[in-house]
């Protein structure tokens, strides 16, 4: 069984869209045409496509900010197409690009909006607010400030906290990081992914940026005009095995490089490399080098942290190992992406990177170009790739 289908059987379906269409008044062509799709519990699904493809309209039909013209929406097996929309929306988190914090309310009141409507008592709301502020790393002293006193990044965090306030199982996010500067955006994305590890919400995320989609999505739906699904699959599969020319064009150049940002260095085999300790004798170090057949030995300190690279000449000069050779600076943590690892390798002296444990900095292995190339080989689509069975399976679903 392929990786994707295994995934399918594990998780329930959180949202099911059935032949969903939307034609806006006064327009002949539908903005969204008969879209059917299942979204699995606890996953981030990213809708990505060029502007005007209907991705935002599709997302907004899930909480019926835009009412569908035809089709059905199911949330956790309940048909919500005709449910009271206000009631429906109170259980779906909603974050838009402009965030839309209420400027006349304090941060705490903004966060408390949905819990108040759901009739929570004051104490519970206050406790939840404390919790959320901590979750999104906003100091508790900001409770009574107003949105205008916050920076763009802070407002964005409050927007997310507000959407999560009543712990909705589903969140809809429309280009939530679109309005902040690139550095803040990257940080917010990382924070959000870390947060998602804990909260495991079902998230529908809209963006026009394929790189953001690749980074954020457990699954990506690449949409073309009228929200037609060009490909709906994991970022890995989309990058290695795009369904058609449209998807390929949309991913743009450098798909293989983008693919590297999805793999972690801990997932690939590290190269065999001779290591010794700073307090070993010169003879021991030389012996290790000769045994391995490599030209360099990596020296570790007493806590197994990588310190220096030495070659035969350095050893034979007989100076203290603590000062011999070059400092070991090209270091990556085990969960670093292959992309970052490759970047580190290119800028290092040796053309290799040292992998360390992210907690204690202990040496874990060395990767060089050969090991990365071997890993890239493995990523290439194989015979009978995953995507076709996956699509077939989706069509079998009862409608």
């Amino acid at each position, binding site marked *: 069984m392929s990786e994707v289908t295994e995934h399918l059987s594990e998780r329930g379906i959180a949202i099911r869209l059935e032949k969903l269409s939307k034609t806006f008044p006064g327009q002949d062509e539908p903005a969204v045409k008969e879209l059917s799709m299942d979204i699995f519990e606890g996953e981030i699904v990213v809708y990505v496509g060029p502007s005007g493809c209907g991705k935002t309209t599709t997302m907004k039909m899930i*909480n019926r*900010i835009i009412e569908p013209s035809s089709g059905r929406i199911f949330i956790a097996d309940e048909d919500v197409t005709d449910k009271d*929309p*206000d*009631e*429906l*929306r*109170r*259980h*779906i988190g*909603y974050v*838009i*690009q*402009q*965030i*839309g*914090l*209420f*400027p*006349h*309310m*304090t941060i705490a009141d903004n966060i408390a*909006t*949905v819990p108040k*409507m759901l009739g929570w008592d004051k104490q519970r709301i206050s406790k939840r607010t404390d919790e959320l502020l901590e979750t999104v790393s906003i100091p508790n002293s900001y409770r009574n400030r*107003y*949105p*205008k006193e916050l920076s763009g990044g802070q407002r964005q965090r409050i*927007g997310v906290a*507000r*959407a999560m306030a009543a712990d909705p199982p589903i969140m*809809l996010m429309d280009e939530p990081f679109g309005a902040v500067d690139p550095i803040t955006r990257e940080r917010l994305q990382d924070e959000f992914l870390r947060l998602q590890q804990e909260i495991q919400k079902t998230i529908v995320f809209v963006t026009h940026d394929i790189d953001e989609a690749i980074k954020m999505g457990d699954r990506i739906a690449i949409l073309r005009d009228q929200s037609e699904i060009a490909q709906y699959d994991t970022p890995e599969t989309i990058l290695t095995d795009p369904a058609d020319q449209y998807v390929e064009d949309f991913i743009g150049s450098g798909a293989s490089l983008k693919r590297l940002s999805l793999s972690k260095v801990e997932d690939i085999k590290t190269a065999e490399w001779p290591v010794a300790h700073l307090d070993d004798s010169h003879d021991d170090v030389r012996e290790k080098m000769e045994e391995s057949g490599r030209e360099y030995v990596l020296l570790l300190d007493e806590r197994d942290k990588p310190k220096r690279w030495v070659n035969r000449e350095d050893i034979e000069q007989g100076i203290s190992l603590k000062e011999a050779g070059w400092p070991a600076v090209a270091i990556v943590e085990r969960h670093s992406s292959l992309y970052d690892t490759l970047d580190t390798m290119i800028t290092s002296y040796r053309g290799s990177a040292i992998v360390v444990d992210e907690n204690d900095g202990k040496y874990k292995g060395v990767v060089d170009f050969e090991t990365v190339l071997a890993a890239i080989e493995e990523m290439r689509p194989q015979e009978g790739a995953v995507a076709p069975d996956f699509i077939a399976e989706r069509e079998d679903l009862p409608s």
Partner: protein
Amino acid sequence: MSFPEYLTYQWDDLLELAVGNMVVVLIALAIATFIGVSLGVLTYRRPAAAQVALAIASTILTIPSFALFGIAIGIGLGLGYPPTIVVLTGYAILAILRNTITGLRSVDPAIIESAKGMGMSNWQQLVRIEMPMAWPVIIAGVRVSALLILGISAIAAYVGGPGFGSEIFEGLSTLGGVNSLNLVLSGMLGVIVLALVFEVLFAILGRFTTSKGLN
């Protein structure tokens, strides 16, 4: 009699006129605020209806006040408070209505969308989001109306309305007499003092009823 002497002598009467003047203006303002804000709330999302409401309110404002007071008596409102309040209310509606519509329409659509997206009903959106955000604009409209009808209230003496108008009219009708100038001056000055009092009141009201997040 010099003007200061006149003021000292007539102090009691003038205070009574001031209170009467203030009361009619406040009553008219309250009614006009109720009508203007209600009409604004009903029409701000319906451009055609808003246009009609604004057109009617503007038309009232173009009628000369003397004529309107005349009509008020003509339709059987009698003399004194009733015609005064009705006419002043009519004049006060436009600025309040217009600012209510402007204020409600100027709320950022993204804020409305996020309120809606969190499950607020239309009524909750209006009461919790749109009205508080439009409030500074609405209160500015009420302030403009207050000054406008304060000026017009002087004419209300023509239909027996309370206020400084009676001083001015009396002065004008006895032009050349000993106290005519004092009468006109005190009436005029009274209206100006009241205007200043209203300004201060509205500044305080505005500050205390507007969220600190909006300044």
